[in-house]
């Protein structure tokens, strides 16, 4: 089974500073990669996805992530954060479960707190 590791459980950062949230996964065989954001008391919202092609993917709200197959990483970055980016961020890997079914495995989450 796949595993996803988010190395930092909490990341505090000052407003307008850059941020990187780290994500590593266990295998790159036929995987798709995602980042989701969860605001307090809400569901998960898709930030960006990597299915194939360019290893640098851009998402909503100014976020981007880079797929690195050799390092099995998919780190999330934003050059300048806002207070409104304060939320929990989840990295997820979709891998083939059986037949055409795919299963999504989540990391443990990173709480990003943007300080004024």
């Amino acid at each position: 089974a796949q595993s996803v590791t988010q190395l930092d459980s909490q990341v505090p950062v000052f407003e307008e500073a850059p941020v990187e949230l780290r994500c590593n996964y266990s295998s790159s065989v036929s995987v798709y990669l995602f980042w989701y954001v969860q605001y307090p008391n809400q569901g998960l919202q898709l930030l960006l996805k990597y299915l194939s092609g360019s290893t640098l993917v851009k998402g909503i709200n100014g976020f981007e992530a880079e797929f690195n197959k050799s390092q099995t990483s998919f780190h999330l970055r934003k050059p300048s954060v806002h207070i409104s980016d304060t939320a929990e961020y989840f990295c997820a890997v979709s891998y083939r479960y059986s037949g055409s079914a795919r299963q999504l495995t989540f990391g443990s989450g990173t709480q990003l707190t943007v300080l004024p």
Partner: protein
Amino acid sequence: DTAVSQTPKYLVTQMGNDKSIKCEQNLGHDTMYWYKQDSKKFLKIMFSYNNKELIINETVPNRFSPKSPDKAHLNLHINSLELGDSAVYFCASSQPPGRPEQFFGPGTRLTVL
């Protein structure tokens, strides 16, 4: 025009009771899922249905029974609720293989007293 909706949003009940959570998606997706998010925010897949057929059934107590009356609905029924069932339950849907990303509902916070 909510894409994935769940009812109720909050559910407070006593141990031993039976309860249901409903999920509906209007995205035309064939595949739906139930996830459990525990108090440490860890998310784990419970079930997945494709076109009303169960395709993923993780290690979940058989007190949990999903039911899919049609491909737009996936309900979760829980018998004999226990304290450890307290969590937030999320429904999601997707349209693999072309669109594997999952769209999530707002969640149902279940509290068992």
